[in-house]
């Protein structure tokens, strides 16, 4: 561009002709053009005001959820110590009946407590846990009896690792505070989550899935569709299960 400076002094022939053309061109048909500038811009203004579509944002509301499900209350309220139960609408201590009734055999058909469906794996005998002679107590393997509040020790006899994990906080649920020294710290016991007669956690209805902004239709559940290659890792999951479980 120092070059172009010199170019001013010795402008080539061609450049002269061109610059002349450039200057002349300013005088040509621009009369009409300048006249049109204002109206054109006014038309644009009108188009913007009247014809421009408003930018829309699609709505993607969080589906309504039942707030009562969002609770920190334990899943179950276990029997107290001493345990009480409702018979014909009246609250009764267990032994009010059981002190009169002769203890039956575990294999017998139940006449009372028919709501109890025992599904505790190998543990299929009432007297494994309930004391035969004092129904307000539980019985340990060594024959000693503990109150219902100590049910943890009963469970711990078989579920040693779970018990160990529970004492360390790796299993179970801790509420109130993460700090052991905090008075609000409380650890739920086994039976506050698990039904001792059927300890498997019952399946739950899941709450609504994500529906985020402009998400579109969700991805297909079967990810094997996304790649044609057969994945040996997924041999036992996608292929078999998805087809059966998918139509829930």
């Amino acid at each position, binding site marked *: *561009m*120092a*070059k*172009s*400076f010199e*170019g*001013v*002094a010795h*402008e*080539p022939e*061609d*450049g002269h002709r*061109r*610059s*002349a*053309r*450039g*200057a*002349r*061109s*300013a*005088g*040509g*048909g*621009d009369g*009409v*053009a*300048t006249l*049109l*500038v204002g109206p*054109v*811009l006014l038309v*644009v203004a009108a188009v*913007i005001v009247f014809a*421009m*579509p*408003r*930018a*829309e*944002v699609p709505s993607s509301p969080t589906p309504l959820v039942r707030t009562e499900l969002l609770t920190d209350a334990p899943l179950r309220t276990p029997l107290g110590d001493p345990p009480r139960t409702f018979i014909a609408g009246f609250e009764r201590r267990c032994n009010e009946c059981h002190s009169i009734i002769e203890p039956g055999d575990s294999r017998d058909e139940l006449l009372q407590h028919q709501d109890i469906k025992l599904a505790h794996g190998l543990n299929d005998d009432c007297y494994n846990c309930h004391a035969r002679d004092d129904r307000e107590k539980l019985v340990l393997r060594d024959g000693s009896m503990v109150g219902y509040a100590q049910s943890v020790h009963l469970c711990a006899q078989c579920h040693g690792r779970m018990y160990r994990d529970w004492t360390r906080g790796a299993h179970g649920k801790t509420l109130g505070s993460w700090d052991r020294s905090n008075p609000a710290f409380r650890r739920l016991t086994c039976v506050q989550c698990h039904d001792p007669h059927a300890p498997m956690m019952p399946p739950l209805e899941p709450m609504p899935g994500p529906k*985020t*902004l*402009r*998400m*579109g239709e969700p*991805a*297909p559940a079967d990810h094997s*569709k*996304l*790649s044609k290659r057969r994945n040996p890792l997924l041999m036992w999951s996608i292929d078999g299960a998805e087809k059966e479980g998918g139509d829930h």
Partner: protein
Amino acid sequence: MTEYLRFLYRCFRLSFVGDWKYYAWMVFLTCISLFGLNAYCQQLVTGLGTTGMTDQVSWGLYIANFTYLVGVAAAAVMLVIPAYIYKNKDLHDVVIFGELLAVAVIIMCLLFVTVDLGRPDRFIHLFLRFNFPLSMLTWDVIVLNGYLLLNLHICGYLIYCTYRRREPNKKLFLIPFVLIAIVWAISIHTVTAFLYSGLGGRPFWNHAIIAPRFIASAFAAGPAFIILTLQVIDRFTSHHVPIGALRTLRQVVTVALTINVFLLISEMFTEFYTGAEHARSMHYLYFGLGEYDALVPWIWTAIVLNSTALVLLYLPHAKRGLWILNVSCVLMIVGIWIEKGMGLIVPAFIPTPIGEIVEYTPTLNEILVCLGIWAFGLLLYTIMVRITVPVLNGELTSDTLHPSEMESVRHETV
């Protein structure tokens, strides 16, 4: 000082002068810019929800355009290096148009970043707590603005000296800045590439090859853009563009495009041959994932365009005709825009780092904002060329009148 202000005023007035084609072009650009401005105002009121972006694909067309344009801006250096280092005379005559392009394009880049911000009103926070040198974005802020200032200085200084019919003080005010600008040009695109390649959570970006590929594609698309621009300048203004300049740029473009294709192949080979899980984004880009394949037609278009451009450039008789060069330039400008804009930004987000697939489609509003910025950039560039050409040709200097002003004086006296 007064002289300088008068220079600015004359430039300002000159930018309103031209023939009907000039008016039509300027009004057209103004209108598009206004549509873009309108769309941006809607976005300001409603939020970025007016764009097609989502939490899953959180960068889109804006950042894609930004990335592409940083490359175009950096490519000005491909005129500067031959002109100043290798003393190429032909390019020396037109180098200023490349630098002006860099100015206009950097302004477009800054606009694209601004429209992408959720809270542009808090822009000042950049000055109050600048996370430098940790955040690559702060590097980008520095290099982009620095490059803008450098080019503004180089162009402004040259034009003003020519206007005043003064010999520019090359050793002090020109050459050092030109040399800095050369390094700086490489840096703006490298830093922009690092912006992406430094993110470990996005395997599609997390490659060492991203920065070289950026530079290669930039040095193809940028000079291609300049080749077309120079011909437009040659045709519509009084400035003569030597054919030798186009020939040199053609070589630059050919080499750069070849390297770009080579790097692309290297990248594809590594990803696909390895077959790692990381290739999913790339798989999505080139072949789609199941029913999700929005980008597939785009990227293959880009590949076809780029390969055609490459073949055209290597054709034995391509040296003769300008039109072959022009066609391949158009092809590669579009091709690289797709490849580097949409093809580089969007797939990195699909699938998300935790495997969700949500596709991205730009909205009308978003496209309008982009068009508006492009139009505004072209508007700026047109004005800059409109002013620069008469100054360089000696038609507008501090002690002469421009023909248009001459006529007005004549009109007065009559």
